[in-house]
């Protein structure tokens, strides 16, 4: 009986998750490109050996990891601060809460275009400011060393509200009695934050982390619109590289290999960080 009840869910998971994965795995062992007339020809792991030798893949992997690590960390820290603020009772809180959500509600392509102009040299507001102070142009979108930071800023701006929302939900699930009791025992606010708030919102932070890491690791539209992967391929993400292979180069076999490899790597990263957090006893949730 129980099996019948979960059957719809299982079918759905197979349809949208297991099937595409198997299909990708199958594709990754075939050459399917213009060269083969878009016909599947088995190439016995040639895609995978090409991937291992492909410097661009490893460079993009490093870049995607860097992008994910920095943007997700910043988002979590900022979101906790924002959520704490929005959890307090004050006049006009409802309006501020609504405004805070706005960046997240905006389509990514549109906000990415906006950021592209914000960082534009010489017309963007940032360069206008530097001119005001008589500093030379920063050329933020033209220096491979720094351009990735602008994409992190844009991503943080866009998704912090989402993380804040999840954490705010967590904060609201903490009963007020706990704080009152804590205060009666003589604890101060900072201690309350450390002893009550943070441990109790940990599961929510974890959920946000999970969502965000998976999302940031697959970042595509933001990068495509803001920098197109440049300058000097310094901001190219794995998803962008995979897209280029599929849609521009019509090399579907290799594109599937990149995507599957980044999925596997993401799994490995997630599992190791989970185990690591557990070992370090930083994680108390089961």
């Amino acid at each position, binding site marked *: 009986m129980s099996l019948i009840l979960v059957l719809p869910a299982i079918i759905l998971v197979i349809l949208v998750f297991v099937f595409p994965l198997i299909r990708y795995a199958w594709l990754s062992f075939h050459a399917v490109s213009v060269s083969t007339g878009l016909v599947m020809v088995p190439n016995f792991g040639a895609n995978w050996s090409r991937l291992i030798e492909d410097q661009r893949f490893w460079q993009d992997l490093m870049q995607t990891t860097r992008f994910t690590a920095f943007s997700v960390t910043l988002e979590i820290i900022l979101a906790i601060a924002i959520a704490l603020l929005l959890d307090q009772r004050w006049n006009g809180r409802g309006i501020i809460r609504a405004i805070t959500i706005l960046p997240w509600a905006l389509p990514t392509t549109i906000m990415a275009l906006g950021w592209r102009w914000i960082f534009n040299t010489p017309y963007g507001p940032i360069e206008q400011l530097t001119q005001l102070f008589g500093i030379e142009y920063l*050329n933020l979108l033209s220096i491979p060393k720094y351009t990735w930071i602008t994409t992190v800023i844009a991503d943080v701006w866009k998704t912090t509200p989402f993380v804040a929302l999840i954490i705010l939900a967590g904060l609201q699930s903490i009963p007020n009695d706990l704080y009152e009791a804590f205060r009666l025992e003589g604890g101060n606010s900072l201690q309350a934050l450390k002893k009550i708030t943070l441990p109790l919102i940990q599961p929510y932070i974890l959920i946000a982390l999970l969502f965000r890491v998976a999302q940031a690791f697959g970042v595509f539209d933001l990068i495509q619109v803001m920098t197109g992967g440049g300058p000097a391929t310094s901001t190219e993400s794995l998803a962008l590289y995979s897209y280029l292979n599929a849609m521009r180069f019509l090399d579907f076999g290799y594109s599937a290999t990149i995507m599957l490899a980044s999925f596997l790597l993401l799994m490995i990263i997630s599992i190791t960080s989970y185990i690591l957090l557990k070992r370090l006893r930083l994680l108390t949730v089961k």
Partner: protein
Amino acid sequence: MRKLKQLFLTAILSAIIQPINVSSATTKNKVDIRILMPAPFADSTAKIIDRFNRHHKNQIEVTVTRGPLETESVSDLAISSLLLGDNPYDILLIDVTWLPKYAEAGWLFNMDKMIDNSEWELLIKGARLGNKYKGTLYRWPLVADIGLLYWRKDLMKIPPTTPNELFNISKRLQKENKVKYGYVWQGKQYEGLSCVFLEVLSAFGGEWITENGEVKLNSPNSLKATRWLQSLIKSGISPKAITSFAESEALQSFKAGQSAFMRNWPYAWSELQKDSSAVKGNVGVTVMVSDPKYSSTSTLGSWGFSILNRSANKNESMQVISYLTSESSQKLLFKEFGYTPTRKKLFSDPILLKQNPILTNLKKGLEITKPRPQIPLYAQVSDILQRELSTVLTQKHDIKDSMNRATYKTRRILNSYGID
């Protein structure tokens, strides 16, 4: 499963696309012809399409799908629809660089038998390029786009003809504080950079890929060309931010009067004649500079119509294409939107010449224009070049190393294709 996937993709596609004319095929014998075009083309041809539909009432009804604005996004949409199997279009308006790829994938219909040789003869030289693949005609040109050098008439009497002259005039004007920058172009890591580079390459006698498939990106002449491009940034003639400039950024800088020269496509001309332009009336157009020993080139960036193999109405499709590219249509498109004509005759049309004097320069450009390498793997090859050039322009990397790497990688791509 395949059906399901198709259904899903069709749903997505139809959500993205908004047809301009929702066809109401009521008559039984009426043929529906559907065309996918980038948004700007869909807008500019709307009038002509309307006229066609009125003239062919009860026979042919043309529906235009307004694709995305950006060139490569249109290709993405076209490719997704072609991969669906159940093809929603009869005609595609395609860019010159897509043709070999699409033809090789077997998506395009052989037009050889549909077009008379006398029609072919009516095309201007540059417009004939980029329509054939392996000797077969797959595309009929709508507009012939070419790279041009824009210069400021108020700052100099005659435009430079050599890279050295361009360099020196720029330096002098910058020293005299007449302009902030000498020369703006497209230096971002994208297709535009390949277009710019092809012109500079020819200016120094270099080559990208030769007719018989040899890669020449690390030849001494090619290195000289790369060095010149790099020197523009090093010397401050082009802003450092040029490595994030696409067409619109370059146009904006030139339009604001910041720069003495600009490399751009013909569309920029009408933008520069608007009242909002700080250089209105002071702009001249010429072909790209080149070393006196070599001939100047402009990169071909033309668009044309292809009939899809899966179309059930190829004859009617051809009829539509002929109408859209007819003399009167081209006149209208040139007058109202500045689309460079493809028919020889129009370049000596006195009325058009009077209206738009740059027609003479366009003709000159079309005589020396060169297409980018016409190979199915062009996108990969161009991507390699863009990457290495962007590295050289942004990071002061060793030019020789970068171009050696580009050559090696390009060769490998070409070889992989040859072997397969």
